[in-house]
């Protein structure tokens, strides 16, 4: 399994575990991109970024959601840390073998977003 596929499968699995009665939606998976494109677009496309969304629209609880996401990530072998909330922004920072994942939840939205990036491939 390639890095892109691994990342996508991990994000979908974590999202499904955090909100078991909903089906996660892959909202961003464009394929390889140049992470330095804003400096120089001529660089190689060396990373893939994937986003997955889920949530509990009827009863959103962003603090509980990121806490659960961190637990699931740790159980799957990720280093995961819940960041201090910032004015309604709840976040998990997770990493594993060069993969970087952010879990975002917001007091003003039912969505929980899992977005990650693969390591650089030379």
């Amino acid at each position, binding site marked *: 399994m390639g890095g892109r596929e691994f990342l996508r499968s991990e994000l979908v699995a974590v999202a499904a575990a955090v909100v078991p009665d909903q089906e996660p939606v892959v909202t961003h998976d464009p394929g390889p991109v140049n992470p330095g494109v804003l400096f120089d677009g001529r660089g190689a496309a060396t990373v893939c970024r994937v986003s997955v*969304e889920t949530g509990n629209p009827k009863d959103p609880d962003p603090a509980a959601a990121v806490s659960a996401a961190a637990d699931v990530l740790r159980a799957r072998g990720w280093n995961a840390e819940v960041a201090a909330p910032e004015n309604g922004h709840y976040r998990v920072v997770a990493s594993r073998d060069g993969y970087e994942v952010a879990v975002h939840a*917001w007091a003003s939205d039912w969505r929980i*977003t899992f977005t990650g990036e693969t390591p650089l491939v030379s």
Partner: protein
Amino acid sequence: MDELAERYRANLELLEAARVRLQAAADAGTADDAERRRLETVKELLTPVTESAVDAEGNVVAVLRSRQFLKVDVDGQGRAVEVLGDVQHAKNVAVLVPGMGNSLDTFRGQSDRGDLIRQEARPSETAVVVWLDYDSPHGLVQAASKAAALEGGPRLAEFLNELDGLKADGAEVTAVAHSYGTDVLGQALLDGGRAKRVVMTGSPGITKYVDEAADFVQPPTRLYVERAPGDYVAYSEWHGPDPATFPDAIRMATNDPIANDEAVSVHWHNEYYRPNSEALRNIGRVVRGDLNSITTTDTSRSAETKLVLGASWGGPLNAVAGAASKVYDGIASLTKPSPASARAAASGEAGQSGGELGAVERAGAAGQGAVPGRGGAARATGVTRGRRGEGPRR
């Protein structure tokens, strides 16, 4: 159909016409490599994107929708202006201006970084416009010239002002630019473009005579700047004084000085938009207007370079910045610093007090040109909480 939807539709029709034309050339065997690549690009731009929504039963479902282009031009380098999100109803709108080496064929990456900013900025309330409506310089010789910025700046100014008519009343616009994009944005602001807030990362300078934000950013707009340890382009001051040195700019931290060993470090010129980095988080805080959560720094060029590589090279680099090849080829080939050294560089002179951004905001809005928080990286709460040997803590 409203005017904006009609504009989106018209640009998709342009793309579809280009697809038909390029496909015909490919099928006939007359398309060259550039045309075949452009065909693939156009096909990708025509591919719908997926969003999540809620159906009548309360289930989360996938919804396909077309991409939203305010402008496309498939000829030459190609241009595109894409809206990510709902620009008509968003409370916050960011306009992202990319730097050199870009074209329609690199738009996937530009759009991806735009989406990354949106993820940091409460996406349900934020739209990001990826603005590639200038001929981005290709190569160092072109990038050494201000010509592309002088040509594109007025068009960006026009767009920023046009945006007032597209967005919701009261929605706040943040212009975000990196590297050569800061030249274009700076020119746009000099040409009358307006935004509520301005973010510049890794800037080679605006122009020779611009050495403070007040020279090109009109109050109450504030300038937020990032310069990462080892950013040789910013050190070069190739096009003018480094905005990170402007006395009335708010210098945001790019690294979290108190994070654990897993923290995402940002160094050199190319890593500001890394997921989970403090540099990207601060950009998101500005876009969503969460200004009290911004972390700041005031590390010096010499301190950053000494901590990154063990010897100060920022000054000598600045002295030879006229030679573009030295700036890019020489320094870029040096060994990367460790995450620890990057964080150390970000924390700066240990033990200094934290910043008071709230005060800076008030003073700046009043045109007093206050200096942003002193010391290493600090949470801009106005509360100083020192941390021995590592700079202030949050």
